């Protein structure tokens, strides 16, 4: 065939595929938003969920999702950072490193239901942690760790090796060079990765159903004693998240307005995740510009 024609056909196919992907995405998000946004109002966001009567809100679920996210990041970020730095800067090219990389890959392809059931057996039962935010956060750490580690490793690797040589040639140790030069330079990439993974964590349900639990006992938002079971900060209390709530409302709710609650919750979920994604881009670009003074 004529090369020019081949090129035209190939470009045409690529455009069509891209268009299809974008169209599906826009349709999905649009559908959820159009159906859900009318159900969102201040009352919906700030009141408790109802078991039987209409008019329930998602206050606790929304808070639980955010709290769980924060705890998950507190646990997984330092580990991923350490592992990422090790892999990018210290790991030698040998079979041990190969095993580590393969493990991370396997872990990242583990279905989240499996992670959830594993968390249920190990954390909830074996370690007696019960259905709790902490169990959920640890399960989400398993789920989050591989991608976050990979992202941090890649961000560090994208910093030119010349930067490291510059630091070392000034008599700085490897560690100083890494922590004070390489990591700051990789920060926009790392931050973007953290925020994007936050979106994934925020929307995760399967790993949480059997770890953080499916109930949202009423908590007091004025009780700051994290050891008190009724405190909103207590990590040992069960906590249904927004994503789990959507799943539950759709499977077993008996409230008359279940459909509206599910639509509204889905819209809130999507909006939060969109904010995370756009925020990641914005903050990443902003920091990068600030650091490089690109005018």
């Amino acid at each position, binding site marked *: 065939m004529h090369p020019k024609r081949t090129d035209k056909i190939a470009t045409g196919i690529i455009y069509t595929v891209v268009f299809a992907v974008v169209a599906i995405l826009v349709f999905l998000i649009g559908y959820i938003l159009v159906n859900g946004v009318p159900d969102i109002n201040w009352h919906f966001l700030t009141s408790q969920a109802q078991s039987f009567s209409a008019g329930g809100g998602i206050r606790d679920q929304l808070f639980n999702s955010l709290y769980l996210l924060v705890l998950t990041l507190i646990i997984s970020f330092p580990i991923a950072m350490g592992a990422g730095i090790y892999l990018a800067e210290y790991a030698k090219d040998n079979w041990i490193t190969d095993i580590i990389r393969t493990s991370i890959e396997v872990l990242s392809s583990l279905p989240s239901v499996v992670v959830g059931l594993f968390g249920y057996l190990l954390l909830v039962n074996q370690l007696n942690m019960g259905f709790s935010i902490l169990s959920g956060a640890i399960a989400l750490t398993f789920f989050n760790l591989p991608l976050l580690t990979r992202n941090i490793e890649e961000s560090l690797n994208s910093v030119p090796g010349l930067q490291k040589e*510059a630091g070392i040639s*000034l*008599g700085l140790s490897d560690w100083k060079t890494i922590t004070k030069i390489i990591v700051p*330079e990789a920060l926009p990439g790392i931050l973007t990765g953290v925020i994007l993974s936050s979106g994934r964590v925020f929307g995760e349900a399967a790993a949480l159903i059997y770890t953080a639990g499916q109930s949202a006992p009423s908590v007091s938002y004025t009780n700051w004693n994290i050891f008190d079971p009724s405190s909103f900060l207590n990590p040992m209390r069960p906590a249904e998240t927004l994503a789990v709530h959507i799943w539950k409302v759709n499977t077993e709710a008996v409230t008359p307005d279940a459909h509206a609650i599910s639509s509204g919750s889905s819209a809130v979920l999507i909006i939060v995740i969109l904010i995370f994604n756009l925020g990641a881009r914005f903050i990443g670009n902003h920091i990068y510009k600030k650091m490089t*003074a690109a005018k």
Partner: protein
Amino acid sequence: MKTYDFDDKYIINLDSEMAIETDNIQVSYGKNQAIFNTSLKFPRFKIISLIGASGSGKSTYLRCLNRMNDKIATVDGKIMYRNVDINDPKTNVYEVRKHIGMVFQRPNPFSKSIRENIEFALKENGIRDKNELDERVEMSLQDAALWEEVKDELDTSALALSGGQQQRLCIARSIAMKPDILLLDEPASALDPISTSKIEDTVQLLSKNLTVIIVTHNMQQASRISDYTAFFHMGHIIEYNETRKIFTKPKIKATDDYISGDFG
């Protein structure tokens, strides 16, 4: 390619005070040997050029002198600096690198402000006094002939500078540590003629207070600025002599062929 006898070599006998000397240095990357027993002495406060074809081992040799080959290559032999063998595994390499600075072929300023680029390593070495830091920033930028151009924008990003300015900043960053010896690996090869001549002037000024060892592919540059020149070929030192003599009357056939462009 012509073949030359590696035993046919000439090394000048020097007896002034030495900044650094290497004794039978051998460097290998895994099984691949890149430098063969090279013994050279570098006199204090002089400029010494290392020349030779691509892959002849100039960078490899230069990087041994401040232990930048650690973790990359195996280096055998002695490197004597102030009566200490700094190639000894027990040597404190961080200390060595503070005394023997290095500037690379491609400018590599940190993504920080001009001031922070210079202050960073100083602060890490415990210099906290604001006046002392300011003074070092100004002195080193003056010495690197950059002060006039950047004195009003010290707090803007170094990455906004031109390539030539960035390279002079890298030199300033190095000399702010007050090293004894400055190693330069083709510092001007990525720069235009004007920046290049600025860097050459800088290097000549600097050699009043320190010893400069510079790798260059530019033979005019070597003959313009250096006092001594060492010619490398396939990992062997072939000729080391006063620059003037090397470029007018080389003693070895290989050197002659190389500088007259009749090589390989």
